[in-house]
């Protein structure tokens, strides 16, 4: 939250419409994403009630558990979900490209990867729980399930894990993706309601965003996007339908529950595709492709792990695994923040507001300026930039620029809105700078102390060498019969 976003929110209220807070889209949006809207039985931790899922806006697949407390019906639901999700996911594993790695073996990477869209953060959390409750099951033994169920569990766990990673778009949370690009006239808490948020962003013709958002809060018009259902619906519609099924589990009783749940899911289904369309209409940021490439790499590695018959993800990370994961998340966060700022002047503006970046016009340039004598003589072009931004950088700071890739400079002097910079990188190897490498007088430039330099991963011991302070080497995880037979009541 910055003053820029706060100001955009005030404008949203005054104008009755959401305001853009970015100039480009910062998440990948697949040409054919899979929308997944799960519902859970109220009061239960992970009892699926229904889900609407699919890649075709006109043909959603509706999966229903007519008696959510029945274990067999739950596993039937999981198998039904696997039937939709697994072919979609596995389809991407078929076409790959060979990536040449500097100083390493070339490897294969999938040309594209699946993308799952869920309505809100709770839905993503539910994906994780659903994954946790199915990935340890087995197709043989005392309580056999369909072989697709444990596989589904591992994929769901993978997607939920990945959604924690800043910048990853494999599992996209609609409300979060929208609030990254638009400021609405309501609080963050209220933005978690997809219908209300979309009301602000794209109200129906002739209606103000505020009015549309108010209307969207009525659960009769816009049922909650899940996973929790509307209590009124539970008590008046779903409860009697489930009881009727219990008394006589006929096709008609199943149909009654199905129809009831369809009314709760269809409005959200339409909203999800609207959200996808709105996001797609935004021009894509330059580095979105790079991040999607990372996603594709991660997806490929996980698909390989499954193909090689690796065990399901453990219940909990060991000490070293947890530290590595955390360090990875921190690096991803830092790099994602910088990349967004480099891709988007409006995001960079937040750093200009705090004085970590500035934009201005070049007023003078000395492109052939050198430093040192003889063999150590180096080309160090100087430029001066005039800015009105409140710069809080000091002489000696290294800065980069979103205008030129590989360009780096050092601040020499700051005086009265005139900043002298010495260019240190990105002007070629010649005696004179490469054409266009040094900004010319009159040019508009931006510089910032944020840099997305490569950060090596944290130095951590091998898991077998976990120090005693962290519990010593963890026991290797071996999937047990107990895990496979765990109660799901």
């Amino acid at each position, binding site marked *: 939250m910055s003053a820029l976003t*706060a100001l955009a929110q005030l404008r949203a209220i005054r104008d009755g419409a959401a305001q853009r807070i970015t100039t480009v889209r910062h998440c990948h949006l697949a040409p054919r994403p899979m929308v997944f809207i799960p519902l859970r039985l*109220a*009061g239960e931790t992970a009892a699926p009630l229904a889900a609407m899922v699919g890649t075709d806006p006109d043909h959603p697949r509706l999966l229903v558990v007519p008696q959510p407390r029945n274990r067999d019906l739950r596993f039937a639901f999981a198998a039904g979900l696997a039937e939709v999700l697994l072919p979609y996911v596995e389809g991407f594993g078929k076409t790959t490209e060979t990536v040449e790695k500097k100083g390493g073996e070339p490897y294969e990477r999938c040309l594209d990867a699946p993308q799952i869209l869920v309505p809100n953060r709770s839905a993503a959390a539910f994906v994780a729980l659903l994954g946790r409750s199915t990935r340890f099951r087995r197709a043989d033994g005392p309580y056999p399930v369909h072989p697709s169920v444990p596989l589904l569990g591992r994929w769901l766990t993978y997607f939920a894990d990945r959604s924690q990673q800043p910048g990853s778009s494999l599992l996209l949370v609609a409300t979060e993706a929208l609030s990254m690009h638009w400021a609405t006239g309501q609080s963050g808490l209220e933005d978690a309601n997809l219908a209300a948020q979309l009301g602000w962003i794209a109200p129906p013709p002739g209606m103000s965003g505020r009015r549309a958002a108010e209307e969207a809060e009525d659960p009769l018009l816009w049922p909650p996007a899940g996973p929790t259902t509307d*209590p009124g619906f539970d008590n008046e519609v779903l409860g009697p339908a489930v009881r009727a099924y219990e008394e006589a589990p006929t096709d008609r009783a199943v149909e009654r529950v199905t129809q009831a749940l369809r009314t709760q899911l269809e409005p959200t289904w339409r909203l999800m595709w609207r959200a996808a369309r709105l996001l797609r209409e935004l021009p894509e940021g330059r580095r979105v492709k790079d991040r999607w490439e990372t996603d594709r790499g991660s997806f490929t590695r996980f698909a390989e792990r499954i193909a090689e018959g690796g065990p399901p993800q453990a219940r909990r990370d060991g000490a070293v695994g947890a530290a590595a994961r955390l360090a990875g998340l921190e690096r991803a966060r830092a790099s994602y923040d910088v990349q967004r700022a480099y891709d988007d002047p409006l995001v960079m503006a937040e750093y200009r507001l705090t004085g970590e970046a500035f934009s201005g016009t070049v007023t003078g340039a000395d492109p052939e300026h050198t430093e040192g004598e003889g063999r150590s003589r180096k080309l160090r072009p100087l430029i001066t930039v005039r800015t009105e931004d409140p710069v809080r950088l000091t002489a000696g700071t290294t800065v980069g620029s979103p205008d030129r890739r590989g360009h780096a400079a050092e601040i020499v002097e700051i005086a009265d809105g005139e900043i002298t910079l010495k260019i240190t990188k990105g002007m070629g190897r010649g005696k004179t700078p490469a054409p266009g490498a040094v900004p010319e007088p009159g040019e508009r430039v931006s510089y910032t102390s944020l840099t997305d330099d490569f950060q090596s991963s944290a130095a951590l011991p091998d898991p077998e060498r976990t120090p005693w302070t962290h519990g010593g080497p963890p026991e290797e995880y071996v999937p047990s019969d107990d895990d496979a037979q765990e109660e799901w009541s």
Partner: protein
Amino acid sequence: MNRLDELRGPVPSRPHDARAIAALAANPGCARRALMDAAGVDKDRTARHLGFPAPFGQSQFAITRGNVFEALVKENGCAELLRLLRELLGLPVAQVGYQDVESVGSHLRHSHTRTLIDRAARENDDAAVFYDHPLFSLEIAGHTSYLEPDVVAFQLGGRFRIVEIKSFGVIDGQAEPEKVAAAARQAAVYVLALRTLLADLGHDPERVSHDVVLVCPENFANRPTATLVDVRKQLAVLKRQLARMTRVDRLLEGLPQGLTFDLAPDPDGVPTRSAEDLAGALSQVPARYAPDCLSTCDMCMFCRDEARGCGSTDLLGRQVRDQLGGVSLMTEALGLAEGTVEPAEGQEEVARLLRLADRLREECLN
């Protein structure tokens, strides 16, 4: 007539429930809520009558699930609970007594709780006892409020522990943080109430442990698991909030004569007072709306509408308000940003920031 009774009208007072207590810690500065709670006004009914019902329904599935789980834990005189406590606390207890305080009439429950706790603290014997459905009281804003916690108090050798039974799942040792936080906040209230009671009876209040026992279903099964939750932090927050709360008598002093939130129900209990008139009466007492109210207070929709009406920056939450340098009106903040409002003394810094933000947005979007 007592001024609080007058505010409520001729209907029985409503006791503080768990949600009221949670709201207390979340938003102690709200005079409207403080007064309505102190007077025991039925806020849910009031909000409904005003045409702003709160969005807090409870699903029959959730209620059933909660009841089934609680019954399971308390079955056979809390036998399952004893097993859990034995393992968790390493207690050498073979047998346990069970006292259901609810067995006496509701008007006697508070004094009955007192007597039982006093006896236990005095006798100090080795017998372990569960007290189910105790009724505590707590001084809130200079007014005694009765609490009916959905908890069990456990006593062994004159030392007490609060046991809270919740039906949210603990998966591989982890539960939803918000739910645990809410449970800890509530449990802290009960620890404080029990400590106050002991102090009142002349015993050492520290006999009530600050580690409460949280009983939840484990993983995806119905089997309960118990965890100790340290509520010292929540206790400290609660004590500070209670001490800081404007005393209700001071709030009452400023009220206009004859002000009442009475719904004037007819013999069938149907409110006869006009919603408009009631809204007018409520607006005499200032509220402090924040988006958090939407999950804690029955009056939230009414207060939000009011905050919208006067264009308060509170609507967007504290984070936004902080970014706006604490400017309370939206028109003022926008005016400062666009240069149509002259900054008042002390506002120069935030005005400079907002003007810059405005310039940057213009530059990037046009």
